[in-house]
């Protein structure tokens, strides 16, 4: 960080969108959900992310529509602030500083300007309390909430554990307390209140839903039990009219219960991962379910899935990170039995490829098929996947599947399934690299001590439709277990690691050419050099990074470090080595031919890095700084132990990104009304004007006011607006002020220049260099009256000038 200030490690996309329940707006057009440190606004019809509300510095823990204004939304965060946003424009309206990390928050219609937050108790950080916050009424952008009053203590920080009933007349809160009834122990998991009746629904860990009534009178409550779910009920929700109760759990089935006719149920099965949250749009037309596989499903009136918003799934990544050579998408396993194709440029999941092609049974403790290995060939026309299922007291089930890219459907189509390709787990798999060769070759190594070469063979029988893959060669080396394999860049050599020994084979004749070894320590990762360094073969052991020269078959150099992952850049000679040292991972980027690394970064992240990939850039960067040149052609992505996807960016790149995002946000998603055409254009011009002229910085603070008035004008229905002529004059006036401001300023400046010309030359130079920062400073302190500031500033300057000459005279004497 210190030595290379302009290269930063940043989080890259794919934050959770299923962390908290999403919110559907009143017009059902937008869906808002907390995603990392931002709130994302999605369109419910197109599934596209329209904009992100950025500003929080901690994890966003909740999103809620403002009860009094349905075009505004509150968000809470662990950074201890509540923020109010205008989500149609993506503008931050107000920030309210609470001072404590907020775990979840609630609002109700009955309580104007009161927000209920869940924060940890000051005495014990592990216990939480529900606190009512009175929002201060002031026009300032940044306010601090002073009026806090505790409502309930010892609550559950899970947002599903508290619900407000009948528009805020009562609060229902469930706790982790176990509740014994009918001889069994039941733990509450979620609670929901009927919007009209005095009825509370609670979900339990045993899959039962209980409806509680008559709780107003002490100790006389009654309850009824609904049972369909076979495991934990994770979310409950009443429709706005209270006619239906929705429930969901691990089974991934959305169950709709009729209120008061609980025997009638509707089901919507096979929604994907386990349901974590259910929300209903305020008009009841759209349901929306969040799933454990980082997915939000939008359902139209409990019948049809209308849209699926899928985020990057980062559960248990067992495949390596890969790049699809065609779509340039990052490929890794996501949903159980699927490979996900994730576009890094657009931060969007492109599609999921179903590898296992079996019905997923949503039941905990069941051993399922999982995709454990995948590999692309160089042109992206073949994909090899390995899926395995290991059941206790049974044989390992292993399938090797080969997928061909189909030009017509633009996706991968299953070509060959090889069941039980090896007797034990497959440890590595790689395709022969060169693009021009006629035969495609795949090599797989397994714990059964063999490595096998698979080749695309012409159909042997007339019954087969097309070519399929057959085993071409099987070999072993002294009964040792092969750990990894790698083809050289031109495909003329194959290196297979058998513990301490690296064996080099010729794929054309399947002859063992040579063996390389450097005891002690088994070689764990292997990589051939590229381009000008293609004569080098690099290997890593637990304590060393080794580089062999293949021409002399001898060790060229070695350096002692614990390299966990070695990746080669496909577009250059560069290699990246992630090495683990005392709890954190360091990165070294180097060329095998040069003794010094090009770039090193200490403590990239804590924990080990075992998955990384170089992704080619769409357009090359023109960085000439030596330390960041390795990032010019491709970008390095890696997964940390916490399953965060990280990357490296340079400062120049960040600036460019920021600029482009600003452009997008200003010109995006305004509905094209005549008003917009008239005013939007003007505003754009204004903005450009501001951006170009930095001396007019003072105007920026006045901008929200004008935009607010504009918004008012735009959002008020046309039939309640006063006559246009009246409005027009008002508008023009409001606009004129700023313009006249600028003009007067310029006039003043001219006057100044003239007056200053009369002064001595030396002083004039000093003045011109000083005037700008002073102006800015003055503008910042007294922003509401810019004209006055100008005058004052000039006055001050004159006084100082006088002062100065006087002082000079004094000095002279």
């Amino acid at each position, binding site marked *: 960080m210190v030595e290379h200030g302009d290269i930063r490690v940043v989080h890259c996309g794919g934050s959770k969108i299923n962390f908290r329940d999403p919110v559907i707006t009143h017009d059902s057009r937008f869906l808002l959900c907390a995603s990392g440190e931002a709130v994302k606004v999605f369109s419910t019809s197109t599934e596209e992310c329209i904009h992100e509300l950025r500003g929080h510095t901690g994890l966003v823990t909740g999103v809620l529509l403002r009860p009094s204004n349905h075009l505004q939304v509150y968000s809470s965060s662990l950074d201890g602030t509540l923020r109010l946003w205008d989500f149609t424009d993506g503008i931050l309206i107000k920030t309210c500083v609470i001072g404590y990390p907020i775990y979840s928050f609630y609002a109700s219609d009955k309580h104007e300007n009161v927000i209920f937050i869940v924060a940890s108790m000051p005495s014990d950080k592990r216990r939480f309390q529900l606190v009512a916050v009175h929002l201060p009424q002031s026009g300032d952008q940044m306010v601090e909430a002073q009026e806090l009053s505790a409502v309930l203590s010892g609550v559950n920080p899970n947002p599903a554990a508290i619900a407000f009933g009948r528009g805020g007349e009562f609060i229902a809160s469930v706790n982790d307390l176990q509740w014994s009834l009918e001889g069994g122990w039941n733990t509450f998991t979620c609670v929901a209140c009927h919007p009209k009746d005095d009825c509370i629904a609670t979900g339990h860990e045993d899959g039962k839903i209980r409806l509680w009534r008559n709780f107003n009178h002490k100790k006389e409550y009654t309850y009824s039990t609904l049972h369909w779910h076979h495991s934990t009920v994770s979310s409950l929700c009443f429709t706005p009219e209270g006619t239906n109760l929705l429930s969901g759990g691990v089974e991934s089935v959305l169950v709709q219960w009729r209120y008061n006719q609980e025997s009638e149920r509707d089901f*919507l*099965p*096979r*929604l*994907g991962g386990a349901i974590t949250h259910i929300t209903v749009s305020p008009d009841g037309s759209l349901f929306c379910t969040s799933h454990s596989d980082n997915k939000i499903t939008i359902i139209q009136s409990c019948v*049809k*899935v209308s849209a699926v918003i899928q985020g990057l799934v980062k559960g248990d990544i067992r495949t390596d990170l890969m790049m699809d050579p065609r779509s340039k998408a990052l490929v890794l396993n996501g949903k159980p039995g699927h490979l996900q194709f994730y576009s890094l440029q657009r931060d969007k999941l492109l599609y999921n490829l179903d590898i296992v*092609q*079996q*019905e997923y*049974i949503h*039941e905990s403790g*069941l*051993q*399922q*098929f999982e995709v454990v290995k995948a590999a692309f060939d160089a042109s992206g026309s073949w994909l090899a996947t390995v899926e395995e*299922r290991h059941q206790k007291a*049974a*044989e390992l089930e292993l399938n090797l599947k080969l997928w061909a890219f189909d030009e017509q459907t633009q996706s991968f189509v299953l070509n060959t399934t090889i*069941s039980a390709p090896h007797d034990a787990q497959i440890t590595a798999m790689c395709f022969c690299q060169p693009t021009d060769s006629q035969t495609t070759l795949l090599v797989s190594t397994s714990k059964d001590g063999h490595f096998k070469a698979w080749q695309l063979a012409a159909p*042997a*029988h*007339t*019954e087969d439709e097309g070519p399929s893959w057959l085993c071409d060669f099987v070999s072993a080396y002294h009964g040792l277990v092969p750990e990894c394999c790698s083809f050289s860049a031109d495909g003329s050599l194959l290196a297979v690691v058998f513990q301490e020994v690296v064996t080099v084979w010729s794929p054309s004749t399947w002859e*063992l050419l*040579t*063996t*390389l070894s*450097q005891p002690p320590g088994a070689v764990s990762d292997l990589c051939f050099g590229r381009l000008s360094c293609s004569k080098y073969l690099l290997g890593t052991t637990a304590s060393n990074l080794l580089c062999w020269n293949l021409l*002399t*078959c*001898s*060790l*060229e*150099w*070695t*350096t*002692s*470090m614990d390299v966990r992952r070695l990746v080669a850049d496909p577009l250059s000679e560069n290699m990246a080595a992630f090495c683990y*040292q005392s709890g954190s991972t*360091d990165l*070294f980027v*180097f060329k095998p031919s040069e*003794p*010094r*690394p090009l770039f*090193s970064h200490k403590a990239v992240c804590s924990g080990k890095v075992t998955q990384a990939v170089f992704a080619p850039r769409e357009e090359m960067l023109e960085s000439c700084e030596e330390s960041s040149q390795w990032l010019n052609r491709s970008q390095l992505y890696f997964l940390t132990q916490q399953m965060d996807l990280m990357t490296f960016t340079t400062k120049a790149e960040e600036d460019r990104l920021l600029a482009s995002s600003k452009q997008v946000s200003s010109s995006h998603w305004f509905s094209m009304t005549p008003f917009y055409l008239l005013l939007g254009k003007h505003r754009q011009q204004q903005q450009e004007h501001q951006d170009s002229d930095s001396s007019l910085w003072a105007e920026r603070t006045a901008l929200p006011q004008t935009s607010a008035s504009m918004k008012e004008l735009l959002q008020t229905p046309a039939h309640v607006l006063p006559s246009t002529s009246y409005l027009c004059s008002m508008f023009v006036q409001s606009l004129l002020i700023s313009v006249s401001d600028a003009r007067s300023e310029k006039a003043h400046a001219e006057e100044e220049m003239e007056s200053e010309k009369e002064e001595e030359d030396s002083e004039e130079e000093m003045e011109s260099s000083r005037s700008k920062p002073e102006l800015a400073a003055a503008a910042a302190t007294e922003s509401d009256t810019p004209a006055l500031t100008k005058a004052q500033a000039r006055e001050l300057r004159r006084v100082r000038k006088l002062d100065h000459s006087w002082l000079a005279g004094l000095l002279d004497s």
Partner: protein
Amino acid sequence: MASFKPTKIQVYPKLGEKVTQDTLYWKNYKAPVQIKEFGAVTSIDFSPVTPHNFAVTAFTRIHIYGPFSQEPVKSFTRFKDTAYCGRFRSDGQLLVAGCEDSVVRLFDVSGKVALRLFKGHTKAVHLTDFTSDRYQILTGSDDYTCRLWDIPNATELTTYTEHTDYIRCGVTSKLNRDLFITGSYDHTVKLFDARVEKSVITMDHGQPVESVLLYPSEGLLVSAGGRHVKVWDLLKGGQPLVSLKNHHKTVTSLALSSNGQRLLSASLDRHVKVYNTTNYKVVHNFDYAASILSLGLAPDDASIVVGMTNSILSIKHRKNQEDSKEIAGQQRRRPSYRVFVKGKNYVPKQDDYLVSKPVKEHLAKYDKQLQRFNVSKALDTALGTYIRFRKPEITVAVIKELDRRGTLKNALAGRDERGLSQLLNFIIGNLVDARFTPVLVTAAEMILDIYQSVIGQSPVVDRQLLRLQDLVKREIEFQKDLLEVLGMLDTMFASSLPRKEVPCSGIATLDWV
């Protein structure tokens, strides 16, 4: 809402014969027509002119059959002893045949009595043929001589006495009137030129030669004798090209398919083998009921005629193109073509309102049960009689799917005697099939666990359990034996591999940290 993914039925590679272009071609013959002759059929010769009648020499007769008749259209019966080698002249008008009584007879195909008799051999004549100029006859005899005869005068032209044993086969060149080839029991094949009065090339076959064949180009010669079929290059002076040993008894007859791409050989081991003439690999094989003495292939491979020692003549006719198409068409026909296609090609107009109907997906019965989590019923469906016997892979796939869902135990439990014995029957029948073993072993173990307590209550089930035990015991023995063989093979392979020494040299150490 994703649709239900049906149970995956594993597709296993078909065991047995592989289907290639050749097998399709050679299988495309009708069921054979069998005709009983008076004795062993020693020679079959097709007439070179349409309608390609063929002469069948058997015992003391020569029958001429038409291409589709099952009765002979003509018979020559005036032989005093066994007739041999009835052959047509290239215009199809004359037929020559040798005889055990050493007289060679020449017939007019339309006549009955012999036109000429060629007397001069002292022993049985097994080889007769016309030269390509149509005026001479080649004969070969058991008196070790072969002779050329003039047809008009019925006089002997030349006698060759180079062979030292019976001459049993031979062929004349179709391109040159002076060249002919004879094969003899003295293991040699000789090429004679009538102009120089002695053999030009001698080839040693190694076994008594039973049949020789010239390629249409006459550059290659094929000889058959003993278990070997050998191909010789005549243009290189009789250099051996290939030696084929695919029969396990004497090869008696050779034939070439009409396009010259396939060579057929018939043998006493009752097989006819078809070779590819580019790589001389066997591409197809015919089985017959008895040892084959003669083989004939009609022009365009329209029929295969085989004569056997049990005096049966088997004729296979090729299926017509239309016939085979008709059968295929019948298979493809769906319930009603018109109903099927109705409205398919209707193009909606511009202001039509399109009502989309969800496509109802078809699920198999067991999948429907699985979708509803009715595990026992799903297993019952998969154990239905048809599936159980005809498609055991479906039953196994359902059992595997249930195991994956963790509900196999539930599905197997709670069965009565009949249901359990049905299940056990299936397991006994398929347990040792290597494709199904891993799945069925799990199921069998579960059954034993579940029904442990009720063993001894039903004699039917007990008997089956004993059978199962016996089966497993035997299988384990087999596996042991196989492993032993594998171990032996490994040792042999390991000892045959060479070893290599690898160099190693000094290194440089870098320090980055």
